């Protein structure tokens, strides 16, 4: 019974299925964007739940789900050390080039 272990876990944690993060691609050529999270017993159920919860109003053409425990986040306490040093380095932006008029979508 392959779902057995999973459902046992669910019962032990009082019907709380694992949390999943949901990413939706709204149309071809765009990135998958994080849209929210939901509970599901496994990946297959997570995708179906995502379809029912997040694509009811034509929001998407593709779904990714990732179990939330696999997402590792930066620590807010590190924010200064991580992100502030980039503030005064304008030369890292490619804004000093002349873009010819014929180049679109830059």
């Amino acid at each position: 019974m392959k779902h057995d272990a999973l459902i046992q876990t669910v019962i032990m944690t009082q019907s709380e299925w694992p949390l999943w993060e949901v990413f939706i691609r709204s149309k071809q050529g765009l990135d998958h964007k994080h849209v929210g999270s939901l509970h599901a017993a496994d990946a297959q159920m997570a995708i179906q739940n995502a379809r029912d919860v997040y694509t009811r109003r034509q929001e998407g053409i593709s779904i990714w789900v990732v179990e939330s425990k696999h997402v590792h986040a930066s620590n807010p306490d590190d924010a200064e050390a991580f992100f502030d040093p980039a503030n005064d380095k304008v030369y890292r932006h490619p804004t000093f080039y002349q873009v010819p008029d014929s180049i679109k979508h830059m």
Partner: protein
Amino acid sequence: MEDAMQFAPSENPALATYSPEVRQQLFRFVLQLADTSLILGHRLSEWCGHGPILEQDLAMANIALDLLGETRSLYQYAAELEGQGRTEDDLAYLRSATEYRNPLLVEQPNGDFADTVVRQFLFDNFHYHFLKQLVNNADERLAAIAEKSLKEATYHLKWSSEWVIRLGDGTEESHRRVEKSIAELWRFSGELTIPTALEKELQTIGLIPEYADIQASMTAHAERVMEEASLVIPQQVFMLTGGKDGRHTEHLGYILTELQYMQRTYPGMTW
């Protein structure tokens, strides 16, 4: 409700070519399909706010809305076929239980989640395979409605099949419950493909699919799912029929009482 397809009456040239008799028969059959989707959709809508988890609550509400969309297209077509000035609302809200033609399965109570899943599975297995045939139907309007509904029914069947497997192949309790639901509901499944006198006549003139043609694929799918779910298909079940001829179980009256309350109490009321 905006989902329902809108057709101009002139869009179906076949309508003019039907004899009054065939037109009347087709009206009754389309009405039967509409009643079926309406009653099952209503049953599912009763779960709204009571689902085991939020995600499944939404899943069932989505399926209910799909069925309601299909219902509206069918009632609108039925009203045109009848040509007596009745509207889709008249057909849904102002007919009594004995005038309803849905099979018994779809009016059965929600019970527990396993009951709802099994009822849905038995219906979806029929609905999906029936619509697959109906998309090639000689009646273009029915074919068009089927084409839209088939995409939805494909998902419904996936949803209910997976839940039968999860429950059957899950814990001891889920297995016991789904087994009980199967024992209880299987006897209503036969009616879906046992043709009534009306259906036989329409099948003879080729206006609706032969149920014999879809039986094999229905059985194959049911066997595959039940096996994966570690469940056994009940054998030699006496199949209950009558719904498609207007002889219903006690449950339909209660459904209609709730469903039709507003129109019966405040006739002609609009939102």
